[in-house]
Every structure is written in C-alpha cells, then in structure tokens.
C-alpha cells in the first residue's frame, strides 16, 4: 500500500520534473529566438559616435540652414550666431524633410508637417521638434557629434552652441 503511494508520488514528481525541464528548454529556445531578433547594433555607421567636421564658423552666415547629405543632418546658424545640428528625419514617421528656403521652414513631403529653422514644430502631425546632435566648436571649427540623435520635447536655448 504505502509502497504504491510512494511509487505514484515518485512518478508524479518525475512527471513534474519533466514538465519543468521542458519549460526551461522552451524558455531557452525563446530567448535564443529573441536574441536573433534584437536590432543589430553595428548595422549603420550611425551608432558609433563619429565627429563630423562641418567647417569653419565663418562659412555659415547667421540666419541660414546648410544641408549635409553625407552626414544626414542640417546645420542651422541662428540669427544670433548660435549653431544647432538638426536630424533630417521627420519626427512624425521618419521621412526626410527638405529645407524650403523660399518659405524659411522645413516641410515634410509625407504628411505636411513643418518645422522652423530651430526644428520647432510649425504644423502637425509631427508630435515633437526635430531631433538634434551635439555641436562643438573647437578653434573656430564647427564639429557635429553624430551618434544617436537626441530627442527633445521643446526647443531650448541650452541646445544651441555658440562660438
């Protein structure tokens, strides 16, 4: 009698052990799959921080926007002489926004969001200002630190670099 109870509890213990082991194996398999789906870090050169040398300060007139297609950003020089490097990706869904010099603003071709030269939203549907990159000025040379673009809720003076 007691032997058979022992027997059956041993069996149910072993059965449960198998179940647990199976669960562990499943979790491992899921982990492996998820690991493969993780975004590849090294896919774009953008991830590593690179310093982009834009040029001497004097090259940029105050109140202008200069595109850098190979760096994928715009360098804005504000009327007061401050610099801002803006990511060219629209914050709505990621289209590339062209600078429309005639209107003095960025206008997205995809859903018509518009931004002023500091990246501030002028028209929807974009939910936040254009992302930006840190700017450094060393020996009167403007350098842009390209890495992951910095998101911002509002445009603030602290984001502007002055010579």
């Amino acid at each position, binding site marked *: 009698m007691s032997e058979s109870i022992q027997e059956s509890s041993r069996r149910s213990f072993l059965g449960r052990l198998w179940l647990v082991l199976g669960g562990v194996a499943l979790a491992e398999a899921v982990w492996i799959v998820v690991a493969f*789906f*993780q*975004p*590849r*870090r090294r*896919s*774009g050169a*953008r*991830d590593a921080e690179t310093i982009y040398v834009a040029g001497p300060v004097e090259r940029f007139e105050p109140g202008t926007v200069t595109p850098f*297609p190979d760096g*994928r950003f715009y360098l804005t020089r504000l009327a007061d002489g401050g610099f801002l490097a803006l990511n*060219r990706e629209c914050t*709505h*869904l*990621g*289209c*590339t*926004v*062209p600078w429309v010099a005639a209107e003095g603003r960025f*206008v*997205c*071709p*995809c*859903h*018509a969001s518009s931004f002023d030269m500091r990246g501030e*939203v*002028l*028209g*929807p*549907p*974009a*939910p*936040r200002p254009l992302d930006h990159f840190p700017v450094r000025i060393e020996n009167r040379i403007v350098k842009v630190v390209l890495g*992951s673009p910095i998101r911002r809720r509002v445009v603030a003076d602290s984001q502007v670099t002055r010579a």
Partner: protein
Amino acid sequence: MPQRGDHSPPLAPEGLVRRVWRSVFPHPVLPRSERERRRTILEFFVLHLRPVRVLRSTLRYTHTFGLGGSSLTLVALMVGTGALLMLAYEPTPDRAYLSVVALERDTLFGGLVRNIHHWCANILVVVVLAHLLRVLFTGGFHGPRQFNWVIGCGLLGLVLAANFTGYLLPWDQLAYWAVTICTGMLGYVPWIGGWLQAVARGGPEIGASTLVLFYAFHTTLLPVLLGLVMGLHFWRVRKAGGVVDPRPSGEPPESEPQHVSTLPELLLRELAAALALVAVVCVLAALVDAPLGAAANPGMSPNPSKAPWYFVGFQELQLHFHPLFAVVVIPVAAVLALLAVPYLRYEPEMSGPWFLSARGRRSAALAAAAGAAATAVLVVVDGLLLQSRAGTPGLIGRGLLPAAGFLVAVTGFRRLLAARLGAVKAEIVQATFVLCFAVWAMLTVVGVFFRGPGMALAWPWG
C-alpha cells in the same frame, strides 16, 4: 488484380515499373467507382485534407464564388514565381534594385514572372478579403466552423505580412519610403515602440539588416507558415463536413440530404475556376508591368509618399487621429472585433443564403452606404478644419472624443436597424461589420486617389 485490402501482395508477379508506381500511388489515380474515389481522397495526402463527400447544394458557384480555392491558387502561383525570382534576386541594398532591373532587362520572361508575382500579390489581398466577406455573409462561422474563422484571420495576417515584406525587396523609392512610414508607425506603440521599430528594421534605421530580415521572412518563414496554416484551415473545412449549407438554417433538414463525391464533382469545378484565374493573371501580367520606381534614395522622400494600397486606410487614420489611437487603439480594437465575430451570442444563429435574409441584405446595403458616405464627409470636414488649425493633435480632441462619437453613432445605427427593420442579432452584427468595412474601404479610396502632394486633399485628375 488484388481486390481485398490495400497492402495485400500481388497475386501475379508485376513488372518493375508497375511495382514502383504502386509503391508511390497505393491508391487508384484515376478512380472509376465510388469506392475507389473514396480511397483516393482518403489516401492521397493532399486530397485527404478535403472532404470525401459534400452536399450537392454547396456546389453552386455563386454560393462561395470559389474564393477560398482562388486564394490557394494564387498562393501556389506566388510560391512558383517567387522561387524563380529568388534565382535572380540579390538581397543587399547596393544590389537589390540593380538585380531587379537586370532581371527585367536580361532574363527571358524575367519581367513576366515578376509581373505575375506582383499581380498575384495584389489580387490575393482582394480575393482573401472577398472570401472573408463571403464567409461572413453566408454565416459560415457558426458551430464547428468557429475556430476556422480565427485560423482564417491568421491567414489574412500572413498574407498581409507576405505582401508587406515583399514590397520592400525591389528597393526602389516606393518600397523604401512605404516601409519607412509603416515601420515609423510602430514607434508610437506606448513603452516598447522604439524597441519594436528597431526590431522591425533590424537596426536603428532601414538598411542592409532590414533587407535581410524582410527577405528571410518573405521567402522562408512566411511561406512555410502560410502552407502549414492553410493545411489546418482546409482540414477544418473537411471536419465541418464541407462548407456551410446554402439553405436557410431555419428550414427543416432534407429527408435525404444529397451528397456527391468530392472527386470529381467539387475538384473538377475547383480546377476549372483555378485555370480561369491563372489565365486572367497571365493576361494581366503580360499587358501591365509591375511598377518599379527610381532606386531608393534615403535623402529624398518623394512627395507624396504612400504606403502600399492595403495599408493606405491605416495611413489615412494617421492624418485624423492622435498617433496613440491611429496606431494602437483603433487597430487593436479592429483585430479583436474581427476575432470575436464567431463568439458573439446569436439567437438564432443564421446561415445559408447570402446576406442571411432579405432584411439582412437591406441592412447591409444601408450600412455600406452610411459608412462610406459618413467617412467621406468627415474626411473632407476634418481636412478643411485641419488646414486652418495648427499645433500638435491632442489625445482627447483627436482620440477619445471622435472614438466615443463613432461608438455612439454605431450604437444608434444598430438601434435603428432593430427598431425600423426589425433586424435580429445576426443581421445587426453583419451590418455593423459592413459599416466598419465601408469606413475602411472609403479611407483607402481617399488615401489612394484623393491625396496629392503633402497629403493634401486633391482630385485624382488635378
């Protein structure tokens, strides 16, 4: 000839060819008697997914319009042409576009095969949606067919995923920006949006790893899944005894339901429909080329940039709703509603004739007209209001309020159907579905034909 059992050894010695043949096809290949037909269906792997016998009444073409079989035919064509395309296609950003151009220019029939793949892909979406509507309108989702509706929804998802992943492959401007916009929408999912978007793109931006990811899904993972789930779908149709009987469910059962053998009655009809479809696709592919834009240029978004047409309704939502609603709330609610259709309480369950009844037909027509008209008006009104307004869309004004308004309107419409037409639950659910479908269809029409540069409302000819 041995008569008893399948595996009894031959009585007389047979030649090698005949023995090999019999090892491959233990069942009759061209069955002559009813008994032989039965065996062929049960033992031939592909055929055993089909019912052995079906109701004669279900054979009428206008009952199902052969839409399920047509979907299968198109998928088969896609696998065939897709395998050929794989021989020419090179899945890297610098080679993809050039390899498609070279395929069209240098390979004999290269353009034709690409055209067939392209047109099949688009027709497939239309046909699968029509099949879904057929099942809905004939009430083919009750009882033993409940879960097959869910499986069908899975197939719809797989077909859309296959289309979407294929769309990127030519790596032209159309492909690049459509995928940018669609994966951009993922970024609005709360909390995990950024991660989700990076997963879908295989990295922080669209590039080589996106292409590899989409290529792997498109040519391996999705077709394999599609094949498996289709097998399950067909098996379930068989287990339910073939498709739903077209006679109204209230009628007393026939004293002696007339069954006919699937082989040849159903299979020959399906074969004829499939051949006709293949012919139509081939003619279309010979006459109209699949579009191929300029090579992808990450620096220049074309104006306007649109998603592929089956996602344009989704894109149109973006213009009217707060992203949280347009990307998460509304699509999730729509999918849940679609999955819930067979599990609602219906009393009585209605099935059989198209639109269930004369009353069902009238309420469905009313719903289609109301949904399409209201959507068109609202889009125009919103477009005009939006142009004079600035600022970012609010969660309440562009989310909660319009969504609540929609629910109130639908509830009112359902009340109206019940009070004025005396519609019962099954007819009301059908009409509600038609209403939502009409809204989606109208959004798609507006997005495809009436959106010009900057996504402003415009006439298609202006």
